[in-house]
């Protein structure tokens, strides 16, 4: 995939995407008593044993590492549900409202720190990866229908998934635009002629990494 094979041209680095994802809320079940936390990024708690509460992922991981809570995986994160989503994605042309990247990042954190909280972690993870690949493949094939317009809606795709296809799709559209309006951009800088070539080669490349 374009963004992955050329990480240096991704606008947001993996670390930055991770940083943003760490603000996602997740449910934890504390096993200790702690007063509410009044953070700059918001107020969380109070924390009472066995009472579930919502906290940002980074906080959940920090508490989990210290053995102060259990992380509750979201309901969608089950093998049955993910299998259904994957089948649905494969069968239909449209996409579902499912944020595969967010899910994958969540997996990454949960896998690293809370393996014991989630059954079938390995299956869950590989299912989500498959879902992501199918979804991104769909976008890349639908690119053939893009014309040189100035705006394209990308329904049901998440911002994080977009980060993967951005370098390729963005430059492809740019190339279309350039060819449609030769007078408007008489001379885009030299670097972009090289980029255009990359973009033109792209569709012929196999989509597998």
């Amino acid at each position: 995939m374009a963004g992955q094979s050329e990480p240096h041209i991704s606008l947001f680095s993996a670390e930055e995407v991770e940083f943003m994802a760490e603000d996602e809320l997740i449910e934890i079940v504390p096993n200790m008593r702690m007063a509410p936390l009044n953070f700059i990024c918001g107020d969380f708690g109070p924390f009472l044993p066995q009472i579930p509460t919502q906290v940002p992922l980074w906080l959940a991981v920090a508490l989990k590492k210290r053995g102060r809570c259990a992380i509750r995986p979201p309901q969608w994160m089950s093998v049955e549900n993910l299998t259904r989503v994957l089948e649905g994605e494969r069968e239909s042309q449209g996409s579902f409202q499912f944020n595969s990247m967010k899910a994958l990042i969540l997996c990454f954190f949960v896998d690293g720190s809370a393996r014991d909280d989630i059954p079938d972690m390995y299956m869950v993870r590989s299912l989500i990866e498959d879902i992501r690949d199918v979804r991104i493949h769909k976008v890349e094939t639908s690119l053939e229908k893009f014309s040189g317009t100035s705006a394209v809606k990308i329904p049901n795709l998440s911002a994080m998934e977009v980060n993967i296809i951005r370098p390729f799709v963005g430059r492809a559209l740019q190339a279309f635009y350039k060819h449609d309006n030769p007078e408007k951009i008489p001379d885009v800088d030299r670097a972009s002629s090289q980029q255009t070539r990359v973009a033109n080669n792209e569709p012929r490349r196999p989509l597998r990494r």
Partner: protein
Amino acid sequence: MGSSAGEWSAEQIDDYETLISTTDVELLKKAWRNEKVSPEILPFEEALVKRAKEQIQLMEETVDDFVESGHDPLIASLYQMDLDRAQFLLRSYLRVRLQKNRPRNPSGFAIEKFMFYIWKTDTYRNRLSMEEEKFTERCIRDIGKHLEETVLSNLPDNYQSVLNQSVISEEDDMVPEPLLDTFVVAKCERTTRPLYLDGSRQSTGDDHFLMVPGDLCILRYRPFQEELMSGNISLV
């Protein structure tokens, strides 16, 4: 399917984001993303940066108090993490703006790529903070001096300008300008008025484009500049 994957539906994520975007951290994150994605420099978020600085300072004092008073070390470390995250975000925002004054491609020779352009364009210059203005001025002076001493003074008389190819140039043709016709990914925050993609305000047929909250689009930056400034869309 809707119910099982419902947690992630765009509407809910959107509701949730409007709810949480009341925190300055969330606003700062949005400003950072916008700045990172847009091809031009955006107005400096002065009030927001000031508020964030104050909150960070307050939190620093709180953390110090915790440590001194021998409070539960767990709580102190959690507050420290929150503080680190807020600081990281603020630094990233300030840094991405400075780097914008520079070329995106660090290996390129034209080091202070957009500096000269920002400096001679009032709209852009007014978007800088006081400190950024000072920084830009100093950079232009130093780079100008450096180029002068190392290269330009050795060239024939007609080719000694930093800004022009030669004395016959009518414009500053050595000053790179931001490419506003690049494509960016944007998320709709508030319903936009119909936009005409050729950039005009008049309809030329039914070539208009309407976004509703939650929509994600790849679009050419230039026609959407105003929508971004008014906060109707944000860049991702």
